[in-house]
């Protein structure tokens, strides 16, 4: 199992690089934004009515914002070596503690969306492939393409209008009931399932046209057994591998969906940190999302190894 160990070590190193790169990049991007940071932070803290030159000066003095940028970056790097992400410039709470709270919400939402999309997307893809060229396939593929083209923001609002406003069967937003999961999860899952159904369709079609399937049919297996025994696992390899690519969609979707549905996760915090120019919070949230991305990608890699023996022996 040395291969697994090395793969893990690779991923750890990668995570470390991601952490440094994301943190430093966020710092410089936030620094490069025009305008006065002290005023932005004061506005985020005290509201537009109370932000004033006096409040901004107090913020500047409190946070040492007039120190040179490289000193503040050096501080952050030293702190991160001690796993100290600093305190939010807006709320004054520890970034690490806030992230711990938010991370749970975001991971929960992401996993639920992935699970739901896995339940819907690939089976639909296989179904379309088996009906390739016929009406269900044409409608399904077109619908999936349309769904993927819509931003998750639009999908979310549409779902909210139908299921919360008109039918009133689910809560429109919030996070205090089990039903609150339905809309944000479904919004994310629909976008994911749209892509995974198309990828699964292509993969299944490719497998179905291969000689091994022709052989399975020749030896007299029924269509169900052909698909179950010989097509599913072969088709699964590219579908799971593609999941890694889809995670980008998930990360982007989480940012939008959390704001839309008042979900207290990292995406929500990231949006607010950008607006408020809360640099430690921005670095922390981007870092957490970056690491989450590496982690999920690693999981995808290991899943590919499990599914496809060729990877293991390569």
């Amino acid at each position, binding site marked *: 199992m040395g291969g697994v160990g090395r793969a893990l070590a690779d991923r750890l190193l990668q995570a470390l690089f991601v952490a440094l790169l994301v943190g430093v990049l966020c710092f410089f991007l936030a620094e490069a934004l025009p*305008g*006065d940071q*002290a*005023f*932005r*932070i004061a*506005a*985020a*803290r005290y509201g*537009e*009515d*109370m*932000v*004033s*030159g006096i*409040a*901004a000066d*107090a913020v500047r003095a*409190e946070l040492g914002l007039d120190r040179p940028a490289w000193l503040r970056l050096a501080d952050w790097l030293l702190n991160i070596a001690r796993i100290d992400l600093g305190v939010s410039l*807006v*709320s*004054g*709470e520890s970034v690490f503690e806030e992230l711990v709270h938010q991370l749970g919400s975001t991971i929960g939402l992401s996993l639920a969306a992935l699970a*739901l999309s896995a*339940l*819907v997307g690939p*089976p*639909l893809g296989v*179904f379309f492939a*088996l009906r390739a060229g016929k009406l269900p396939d044409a409608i399904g593929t077109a619908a999936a393409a349309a769904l993927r083209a819509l931003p998750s923001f639009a999908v979310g*609002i549409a779902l*909210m209008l139908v299921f*919360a*406003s*008109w039918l*009133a069967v*689910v*809560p*429109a*937003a*919030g*996070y*205090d009931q*089990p*039903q609150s*999961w*339905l809309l944000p999860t*479904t919004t994310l899952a629909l976008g994911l399932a749209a892509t995974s159904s198309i990828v699964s369709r292509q993969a299944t079609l490719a497998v179905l046209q291969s000689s091994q399937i022709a052989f399975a049919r020749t030896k007299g297996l*029924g*269509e*169900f057994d052909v698909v179950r025994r010989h097509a599913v696992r072969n088709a699964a390899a590219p579908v799971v591998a593609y999941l890694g690519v889809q995670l980008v969609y998930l990360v982007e979707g989480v940012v939008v969906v959390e*704001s*839309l*549905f*008042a979900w*207290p996760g990292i995406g*929500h*915090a990231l949006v607010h940190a950008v607006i*408020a*120019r809360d640099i430690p919070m921005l670095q922390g949230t981007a870092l957490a999302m970056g690491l989450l991305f590496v982690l999920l990608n690693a999981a995808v890699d290991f899943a590919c190894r499990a599914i496809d023996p060729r990877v293991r022996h390569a």
Partner: protein
Amino acid sequence: MHLRGVFCGFVAATVAAWALAASGPAAADETRTLRIVSPWEITGLDPARSGYIFARLQVAETLVGADNGGNPVPSLAENWTVSPDGLSWRFRLRPNAQFHDGTPANAEAVARSLQRAQSLTGGMLTNAPIAEIAAADGVVSIRTDRPFVALLAFLAHSSAIVLAPSAYSEAGAVTRIVGTGPYRATVVEPPLKVEIAKFEGWAGRPPAIARASYLAVTRGETRTAMAESGQADLVYVLPPEAVDRLRRNPRLAVAVAPIPRTRLLKLNAASPFFADQRVRAAISFALDREGIAASLLRSPESQATQLFPPSLSEWHVQSLPALTHDTARARALLADAGWKPGQSGIVEKDGRPFRVTLRTFSDRPEQPPMAAAIQAQLREIGIDMRVAIVNSGEIPAGHRDGTLEMALFARNFSLVPDPIGTLLQDYGPQGGDWGAMNWSSADLARTLEMLGSTSDPAERARLRAAAARVLHAELPVIPVAWFDYGVAASRRLQNVSIDPFELSYRLDAMRWAE
């Protein structure tokens, strides 16, 4: 067909999961919790940051409150007196007042909390000329450097809520909310959620609503859906375009509450563009306020015919001529001021085209479209105005470093219930971050100063009208639209009322319909 069976199974399982989750636990428990939704997030426990949320939820109280007319009314202080020289105030506290941790809310504890509020960054009391806050003989006494009539209004500001000694850390930061109100906080989860329950130690009339929850939802579409679906019982700040639709919903009562806030254009009077009063007047005539109010704000009555809205009845002067839309007059005034038509329809003076940048921000979603409308309206009279969408802090920042040319925002005239507090900040000799810029009027300054120290009602009324006239004639800022917002309340709730000063949600007066 096996395959179709498997596929149908998947679909059925997904639908079933949805249905199961949707049915959930019965709604019976929920009917007991009043659900409030508003766009404002809890950015921290510090009273200068989120004190207003805990004040509105009636968890924490200020020393003094305000009635619908902005007049001071008892809150934690039962009554008060002021010395003949107007410098010493004595506040007698409500007997039996108790903090939610069970400790008595006595003069010592209250004075200590107010002392903290006095040194609070971003707080309101820092702007009041307070010399000393002390506790003596069971009374809170406040001494000011000069007679300061608006002190009561300042004490009603949410950054001056009174918290128990146990609310603060060693370093003086607020670590939990321990107030004196009829409700106590049971769950505080920044940035989105607060839950409250009736405080058993409350000595006044016990509230009929036993439990309530507060959820911050920044997106207007989401708040609308929560009102429509019945998920929320009280929804504050409806998007203007949703108000009519919600009005038709039989389960909801929708009210539009005028708030003493005005959307206005701030102009840098030191810039070669706006130094001339005639140019400022021209811009005012160029604005189609009626169009903006009717089609963007969906509230025709909100077009600002003067700076102070009618809801500020003491400051709104009926006899002032209304600010109107008159493009021809706007062009004539510009020409009088020396701005002549130049290339591509932009007016010029001394070879310099009239080209300026307006800053506004998107925290209030109506502002960017309003800026676009104003851009088109000014283009009609030959002014090329660019729009920069920035963070709200960029406006005071630009005021300070002199780079600001124009800004569009909504100014709250009742940061404290008496607008004089805001006017002193905004239109004093140095101008103000959210008021005049490089414009001053000795007349106005004198009038405001006298208002700050005069308590004779007739004299005050005369001074107020004089101040309003100066601002109306000189236009250091140009009013565009007054402010109102929609509130949707479930018909299951009774006795819902809206505090025009946004100090309280008045939950203690509400009850469930039978």
